[in-house]
């Protein structure tokens, strides 16, 4: 290759890189505006935010607001609601992680074996439908069952001679109700993820297992589940990483923001929203967000490295 040819080639790849960069640029600008600029917001958590009207956000945050050290965090963690909020967030999330893996895997394993492809397809489609409804809609669906005067549940209760229940005033039922609602909404979608993965298993493996006399459960135990392990681990790691996050809609909109249910519906995300929008307490809200992010990140890294030690292929990073 002589010199000019080489030069041309470099020029050529240079132009190619430039074109590709031009194509990437719009999305990169979006990421800067809506993901990276807001990252400066972690400073809200370490400042006592005292904005002066008429000045820009950054002047207000960096110049006009004094440093608060870890004060926001210690106030936040010492507030009397916090133990309950943390307890709710963690227990709901742990239950959702476990149920969100066990139930869909169970369904997928048993659905795969149905003979009729058509029936399988229809069942999947019906079961994934709730996933695409918003929490607002889900809230109304639940309301049709639980409304005090006309609701289906109270109608049944009175028909059987029992007293009607004020559902939206009775916290004791709501842990169960929220768990059922979450399982109803998300199981179908997760089931399809596992179904897709099961379809990619070579069926001849099963056939030879049958020849060796393996029962159905043995085939599930030794062929299907090991094949699903990487998918399950990926989902598990990601869910652990968002263990302090919760579905705002489920805990705010589905109980219709009922004050008497707060003890069982208040999670960290609901707190972050209320601190921001109803009390305008920016610093507390930001401190809570920061905790969510940093705790989630650390847990994700720890879980990932544990899983990598056990089985390298199943780890996320």
């Amino acid at each position, binding site marked *: 290759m002589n010199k000019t040819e080489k030069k041309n080639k470099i020029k050529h790849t240079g132009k190619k890189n430039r074109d590709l960069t031009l194509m990437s640029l719009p999305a990169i600008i979006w990421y800067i505006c809506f993901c990276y600029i807001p990252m400066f917001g972690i400073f*809200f958590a370490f400042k006592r935010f005292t904005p002066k009207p008429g000045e820009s956000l950054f002047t207000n945050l960096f110049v006009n607001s004094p440093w608060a050290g870890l004060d926001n965090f210690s106030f936040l963690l010492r507030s009397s609601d916090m133990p309950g909020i943390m307890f709710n967030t963690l227990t709901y999330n742990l239950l959702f992680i476990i149920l969100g893996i066990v139930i869909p895997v169970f369904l997928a394993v048993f659905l795969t*074996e149905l*003979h009729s492809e058509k029936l399988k397809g229809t069942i999947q489609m019906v079961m994934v439908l709730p996933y695409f409804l918003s929490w607002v809609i889900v809230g109304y669906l639940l309301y049709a069952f639980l409304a005090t005067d006309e*609701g289906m549940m109270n109608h049944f209760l009175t028909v059987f001679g029992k007293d009607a229940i004020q559902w939206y005033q009775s916290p004791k039922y709501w842990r169960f109700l929220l768990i059922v609602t979450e399982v109803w909404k998300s199981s179908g979608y997760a089931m399809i993820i596992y179904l897709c993965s099961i379809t990619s298993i070579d069926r001849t493996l099963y056939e030879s297992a049958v020849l060796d006399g393996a029962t159905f459960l043995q085939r599930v135990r030794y062929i299907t589940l090991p094949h699903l392990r990487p998918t399950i681990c990926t989902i598990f790691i990601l869910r652990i990483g968002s263990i302090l996050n919760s579905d705002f809609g489920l805990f705010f909109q589905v109980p219709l923001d009922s004050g008497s249910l707060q003890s069982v519906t208040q999670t960290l995300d609901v707190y*972050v929203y209320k601190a921001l929008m109803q009390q305008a307490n920016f610093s507390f809200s930001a401190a809570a967000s920061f905790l969510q992010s940093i705790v989630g*990140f650390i847990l994700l890294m720890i879980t990932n490295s544990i899983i990598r030690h056990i089985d390298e292929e199943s780890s996320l990073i």
Partner: protein
Amino acid sequence: MKKEKDSAESNQYITPQSSAYSKTMNIMMSAGFVLLAFIVFLPILLVVVISVSSEASVREVGYSLFPRGFSLDAYRYLFRSGNYLLRSFVNSVFITVAGNILGLMLMCPLAYALSQKEYKFRKPILLFLMIPMLFSGGLVSSYMVNTQVFHLKNTYLALILPGLCSTWYIMILRNYFQTTIPGSLIEAAQLDGCGHFQIFTMIVLPIAKPVVMTVSVFQIFAYWSSWYPSLLYLDSNHTELYPLQYVLVNMDRSIQTLIRDAQYMSGMDVYTPPAVMVRMVMVVIVILPVMILLPFFYKFLKTGMTVGAIKE
């Protein structure tokens, strides 16, 4: 040759012979799953039935799957109630379509660039896209930046812009571009003097239609269901911007507006069905498009899940 094809097919589909279920077992399991699917569907069916129940029936037997009488009063009332509902419907459609198109315009070219192995900035950009998945500034700061730096409060842009891109969608697109579009095809086009812009629009996009549809489906459903941005960025003086979902969040206030509109339109007191009935009709109006589109979109959803599972 034919035999090979047969065995390849039997790998994909379960035949009565290869299934673990015997004939009776299959019938039992099918019945079980049909029952389960029915239970999952029950709440949606209930709301549809409520929306066409007569007021008298609701007073008598409450919300029931077997109402005593039917009536379309609540529907008639809503469609007569003037511009408010129509406006919010149009808002929802507009936000969905605009968000989807803009999102694709940003994500597809980037995904194409990332699918090119010789692209110099491929690795740094991948890292740049991964970081926001692990770490975000949180609600307060994105709220403050969106309202005070970009001044998005009470605009359509507040409902559209923050949801345009997602690293996960970009990965799906890139995986598909990488695995299904032969590198030799792109090289041949380059030898013919095509630049990347031409290759992308003339060759890649037409081949990649299925995966572009997949991402569209996810985005369309996401924008159609979105209500949280409205809760954050729209205040009660801007009801003309409300999408359907947010009208439902704000229903108590909205019912008043509806009644005022209806009275204004007809110039007198009109029949008003119970507020709850009107809500149920609106819930049906929101659910119906999803139910109608899902069967058509379903195969694209599955493409997405299969392609999305490929790891780097």
